[in-house]
């Protein structure tokens, strides 16, 4: 399944991206490029993962990289509305506690 990324505009310039589909080897480059293109100096990013159906290690690494980039710029990455099957991947990989994850 492909990945759809929908951006929500906010007056405080934070970037909010609702993702649906698979974040994996096939879609990760487009995901990162889309987020980075919108960041434009802002360091607050929210990923709405309510529609995420699959996450692999390449997607996890991308989330970790974005998390680090936001922190380096004094901001944060929040991953919200995480569904149980995606939460399990985060737990299996041992990265859930490294990220700001909110269950859906």
């Amino acid at each position, binding site marked *: 399944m492909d990945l759809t990324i929908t951006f929500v505009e906010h007056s405080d310039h934070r970037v909010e991206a609702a993702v649906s589909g*698979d974040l994996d080897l096939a879609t990760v480059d487009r995901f990162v490029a889309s987020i980075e293109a919108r960041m434009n100096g802002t360091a607050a990013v929210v990923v709405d993962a309510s529609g995420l159906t699959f996450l692999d290690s390449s997607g996890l*690494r991308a989330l970790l990289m974005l998390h680090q980039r936001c922190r380096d710029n004094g901001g944060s990455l929040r991953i919200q509305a995480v569904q149980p*099957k995606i939460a*399990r*991947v985060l737990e299996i990989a041992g990265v859930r506690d490294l990220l700001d994850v909110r269950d859906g």
Partner: protein
Amino acid sequence: MTAVGEIDSIELVVPLSVASASIVRMTSVAIAAELGFAMDELDDVKLVMQELFALSIAADGHGRMRIEFRGRPGFLEVRGCLEPSPGRASPARIAIAGIDEVTGAILAVAADEVDLAPKSGDTFTMSKQARLHREP
């Protein structure tokens, strides 16, 4: 759906490409479902096969992979073999050293056994037992 009995062998041959990854994981899930795996176990199978196939693509993005599925109710075994890409006499080798902590953790937790490149470096095997079929 009635689970099948023993699966002696099902083979899938695919190009080592990103586009093939979804075919590999969907085929794996379909076979595991036939063997009676539960939903969360199917998610594990899907994830492990994605990771193993991604490692294989990293080894050789131009060749092909022959994947053999065997199983019985509640048990799945998969063996993947890299085939030589055009112009090469021998297949590439899966780079075990290239496995990072994230992938390593996934393979360790989501499968019961994963053996990468057991002999020649061009093969992986994985197996998983469904919960209901585990020994007490």
